[in-house]
């Protein structure tokens, strides 16, 4: 593997509450190569969006980064000052937000919102910024005449395309997609993902794709990381995870999605519910729902161990 674009070590994020801290991201290690698509999957509330915000250092209070190191393009993100962060944000690392409806300012035109992004980072004239904003819109498949439109005048799919145009405005090295298609219907979702794929191939940026839709993610990503209750339980190449998952949680997740060619009723859910991060179970957090748990799972936190080429899993029991 070449030098990683992004490397996360031992990262912990806490939500400080009156009853003490709640750990939403628990000792996470991750690496990302330039131009790679990494999928991050997990149930709602497992900490995957928190992780994304921690990378850009836009965590809203009361969330705080408790510990760890984030290195991006060789620089320590957690040690950056506010002006240094402003320089890194968007220029090198940008993000597409979950809900396109809420991510655009309702009272200014999308053209202004694209142009102010460019103007904040580059010493260009207003006309030039506007011309580039038009080119960006064209790039995501929206005619440049729509620059003067407001968010409410666009369809959900178009709004999300504007969100993508915004994220690509300064040609960053890394784009984080935080559930970019949850608010859209399946057809528009497929179109948009295909479009991102094409843009990614031409522009060569790396992608962190966060979703709870495992099937969609396996098609879209090069590599996949599975989260469960604030911890990473499995990381590996998408093809390996799809065909030979190791962790019982990943296996359960894959069984929970119906396959097109399987008989009706083949989808199974994982029994039980995800634990509360306020009072997580000791040992392996998945053990109360795990079909193969042994006594040791209740006591010791399993380490992420290499089980194949580039394939790590946090389960010493599964074979």
């Amino acid at each position, binding site marked *: 593997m070449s030098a990683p674009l992004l490397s996360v070590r031992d990262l912990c994020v806490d939500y400080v509450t009156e009853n003490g801290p709640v750990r939403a991201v628990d000792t996470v290690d991750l690496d990302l190569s330039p131009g790679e698509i990494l999928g991050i999957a997990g149930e709602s509330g497992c900490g995957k969006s928190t992780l994304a915000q921690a990378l*850009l250092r*836009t965590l*809203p209070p009361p969330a705080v980064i408790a510990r760890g190191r984030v290195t991006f393009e060789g620089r320590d993100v957690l040690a950056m000052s506010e002006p240094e*962060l*402003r*320089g*890194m*944000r*968007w*220029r090198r690392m*940008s*993000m597409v*937000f*979950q*809900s396109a409806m*809420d*991510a*655009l*300012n*309702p*009272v*200014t*035109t999308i053209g202004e919102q694209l142009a*102010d*992004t460019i103007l*904040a*980072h580059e010493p260009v004239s207003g006309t030039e910024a506007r011309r580039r904003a038009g080119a960006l819109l064209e790039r995501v498949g929206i005619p440049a005449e729509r620059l003067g439109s*407001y968010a*409410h*005048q666009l369809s959900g799919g178009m709004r999300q395309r504007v969100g993508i145009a*915004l994220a690509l405005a300064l040609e960053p090295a890394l784009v984080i997609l935080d559930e970019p298609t949850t608010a859209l219907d399946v057809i528009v979702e497929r179109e948009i993902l295909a479009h991102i794929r094409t843009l990614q191939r031409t522009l060569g940026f790396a992608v962190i794709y966060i979703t709870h839709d495992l099937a969609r993610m396996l098609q879209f990503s090069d590599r996949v990381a599975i989260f469960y209750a604030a911890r990473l339980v499995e990381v590996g190449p998408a093809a390996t995870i799809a065909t030979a998952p190791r962790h019982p949680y990943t296996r359960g997740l894959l069984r929970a999605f119906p396959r097109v060619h399987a008989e009706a009723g083949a989808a199974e859910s994982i029994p039980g519910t995800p634990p509360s991060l306020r009072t997580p179970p000791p040992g392996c957090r998945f053990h109360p729902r795990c079909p193969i748990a042994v006594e040791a799972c209740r006591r010791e936190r399993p380490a992420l161990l290499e089980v194949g080429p580039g394939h790590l899993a946090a389960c010493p029991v599964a074979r």
Partner: protein
Amino acid sequence: MHYLLRRLGFYLLAAWAALTINFFLPRLMPGDPASTLFARFKGKLDPAAIEALRATFGLTDAPLWRQYLTSLGHVLQGDLGVSIAYFPSPVAEVIGTGLGWTLFLAGSAVIVSFAIGTLLGVVAAWWRRGWADSWLPSTLIFVGAFPYFWLAMAALYVLGFTLGWFPLGHAYSDDAVPGWTWAFTADVLRHAALPMTTIVLVTLGGWLLTMRNTMISLLGSDYVNLARAKGLPSAQVALRYAARNALLPSVTGFGMALGFVLGGSLLTEIVFSYPGQGYLLVQAVRAQDYPLMQGIFLVITLAVLGTNWLVDLIYLWLDPRTRDAGS
């Protein structure tokens, strides 16, 4: 455009309803202004004069619907009848003198209060839990909680009477010559300073809190987070993204406050003997001057409707979503 016309139509309808109620309400009460005026002259008027007066006030023996139509016609021509308290001045003329002073005093007080309060709200929200946010809202709400007349009288007593820093009443000094001169303008401002300051002080807290609370909730919104994540300068995030959107609910309140300016500054004008609309209204009530009262109520109604229409216009300009809903 269509939207504005539709709103205008609605306001015209409301204005007509107000005129109608304004016409019938006094007629449901016992007595009539002509008899009142007659009584004030204690028998020194002859019966023919009463009839003439009744005709002047539109109180003929004609059927009610005919009186109603006549009265509507008069109002449309700007003829509001003759004042009793200020007999024989026409009501329109009496109101005209008070209207200017009220518009100047209370109008500018509302605008100043809105501007300062909203700005402070932005400051308090942006530096939440900061120095300004911890003492400004509580102090201003504390001041605003005093009964207005008490605060006004205390200010008048201490700053005007005891210390002599401000004049005790009226819109300008008795010896001042009205006109567009520096001396007269300065005199008017000196007289308006204390009443205006008291109005601003008691209303500031409301504007601040409204703006602060809306803005704080918007600071957590996705588009503000996105603006921050985009690496925009803080001032741009605060003003163009957060404050610009947070302003919308405040503008509604501003329009309503502006509408009530013409009727709402009663206490100010009484405490500071300011010759405005509120002062006239008190005089009208004391003298049972129905035409003047009706005239004032009419002006208040039209002002509320007019400013509401103005707010609709401002909204169209501020919020593009309303533009499309209308067309």
